[in-house]
Each structure stands twice: as structure tokens, then as C-alpha cells.
């Protein structure tokens, strides 16, 4: 279950970048040779985001060739129009 450790790092990274704003979705790229099982990552994501500003957010995984393993972007609740 190395996915748990890597997903925890992902959530920490997102939390650092978003400063407590409510997160709707996290977009990542996972390579077929990265050693990461996407389903395990989704499962881990739901566990490690509990009681954080990421709770309830979707993890959207784009599967690609190779060993890429990257956080691509984060979708946040719009501050002005939805405040």
C-alpha cells in the first residue's frame, strides 16, 4: 500500500498550495509504469482527506504511458461568484 503514503504526500501538497480553500477536484497523471494502482489511490484519497479542506473532493486520474506521477491541477470553489 505505497499508494497511501504517496496519496498522503499529494494531499499535503494540495493543502500547502490551496491555503484552506475548499477543493472540488484534484487532477493527477498516473503512468502505467509508475508502480501506482489508480483504484488504490482513489481509495487512499478518500481516507486521507477526511476532516481536511479536501474532504469530499474528487480525485481525477488521467492514465498515461510511462512512469509519470504528477499533480496536474486543483479545482477550487470559486471565491467571488459563489461566496
Amino acid at each position, binding site marked *: 500500500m505505497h499508494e497511501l503514503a504517496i496519496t498522503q504526500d499529494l494531499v499535503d501538497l494540495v493543502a500547502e*498550495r*490551496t491555503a484552506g480553500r475548499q477543493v*472540488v477536484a484534484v487532477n493527477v497523471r498516473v503512468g502505467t509504469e509508475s508502480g501506482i494502482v489508480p483504484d488504490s489511490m482513489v481509495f487512499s484519497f478518500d481516507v486521507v482527506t477526511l476532516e481536511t479542506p479536501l474532504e469530499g473532493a474528487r480525485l481525477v486520474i488521467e492514465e498515461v504511458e510511462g512512469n509519470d506521477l504528477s499533480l*496536474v491541477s486543483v*479545482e477550487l470553489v*470559486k471565491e467571488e461568484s459563489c461566496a
Partner: protein
Amino acid sequence: MCLTCGCGDGEVRVEGHPHDHEAPHDLLVVEQRLLAKNDHLAEHVRASLAVRNVTSFNLMSSPGSGKTSLLERTIAELGDDRTVCVIEGDQETSFDADRIRAAGARAVQINTGAGCHLDASMVHDALHQLDPPSGSLLFVENVGNLVCPALFDVGERAKVVVISVTEGDDKPLKYPHMFRAADLVVVNKTDLLPYVDFDVDRLTEQARRLKPEVRVLPVSVRTGENLDAWFAWLDSVVDEGVSDGSAATESTHSSHLGRHSGATVRT
């Protein structure tokens, strides 16, 4: 879906919200590798070990392949020639660190609890305790597991995968991430070859399909067979530096091995 007002993807609109939701969310583009934090710390570990003239090896295998036995024998045979220090990784107990200390080397045990691998931060913290002297060899004996440790750089100069002949010769293709990462594959317990269906050539062929230049080194820690080649390989890493498995060439290894009669490295 917008979690504040409920307006969502496509045509979903919440009555009474006049605002346009064509772009309902702010998009923050990040583009960052997920292992960046670990890799950054691993580089720091590698650089600080290089400054101290310490050569580090990440030893990975299934449980029971003989990693600790290989280290005990290495410590005994190197004797005063070269100091060996060991970071041991296991989920529980300090059995392995106790064995290493009994063999006469410095050791720090890391217990990962539920964790299935060591990472750079654990090794970094253990190094503060271990404080390996200049010129020493540092072995990081990873948690016994052919899957997870392959992903985590711990600041090693070279990665060694140990497999024993009782495990079966089909492991490289079954665990490709591990064998793709290896700079050296040690095949241990060759004294048991007459009793098991293990074909060293088949294993070598599979390992090379994943990493064409990988060296495969059959040894028996128990009888000492071919351990000269193991020591020669360690020397070559110390002398040449194998930062990513591609720096040292086959020919330079051959010249090192020439100093040890009877040693064989499968090339």
C-alpha cells in the same frame, strides 16, 4: 459541482443564482511530481553522504532472501579493511539490527509499523543517529517486499535486489518495477540449486528484458561461493560511482573483477 451554491457541471443550475457558471471553479495549475518531496530529500542525503565519502546501497528483496545474512558475512569478511554501517527497515522488532551489531557493525533499526517501505525522510533521520564515518559503506536494508520499495529513492548510490533460488526464477517479470530499478541482482542460496527448479539463465534473461545492462550475480552466502564477485562489485561502486546504474560500464567492472580469481559476474 459547486459545493457552495450547488450549481454544477453541464446544465445543472440552482434557481435564484443569477451568476454565470460556465467556469464554476477556479483552476489552480500546479504540475508537480508527486514524489518530488521524497526525491528532493533523497538528493540531499546522497549529496551529504558523497561529501563524507560514504558509499550507500539500497538492499531490497522479499522477506527471507538472505539480505541480513549477506550483510553479516560482508561485515565479517571486510573486517578492518572497510567500515560497514547499516540502516535496518522492518515493520516490527530490532532482530536485524541486533544481528548486525553482533556481527560488529554500527546499526540503526527503523520500524515502519504498518509501512511497507523505507523513504528518504526515514533514512535521513536514521543517519543523524548512525553518523557513518568517512570511507564507510552504508547499507540500507529495506523492508522485505518486492513491490513498494522500488518507488522510493532513499539517497543510495546503487540499488541491489536480492533473490534466493527458493523463490522461483519467474520473479523479474512478475515484479517488473523492482527489477527495472536494480543496478545489481544478487541470486542467493546457490548451494540449494541442486534441490530446486531454479534456472539462473532464465532469471537473467527476464531481468535483462526489463533492464538490458543489469548485472546478475549468483552467490551462496552460506558457503561463500562467488562472494569475491560481490566484494569486487562493491569496490567498483565505491571507485566509479554508479549514481543511476548507467555510469559504470561493463568493461570497467571486468577490470575490477580481474583482481579476484574465480569470481564470476554474469554479464
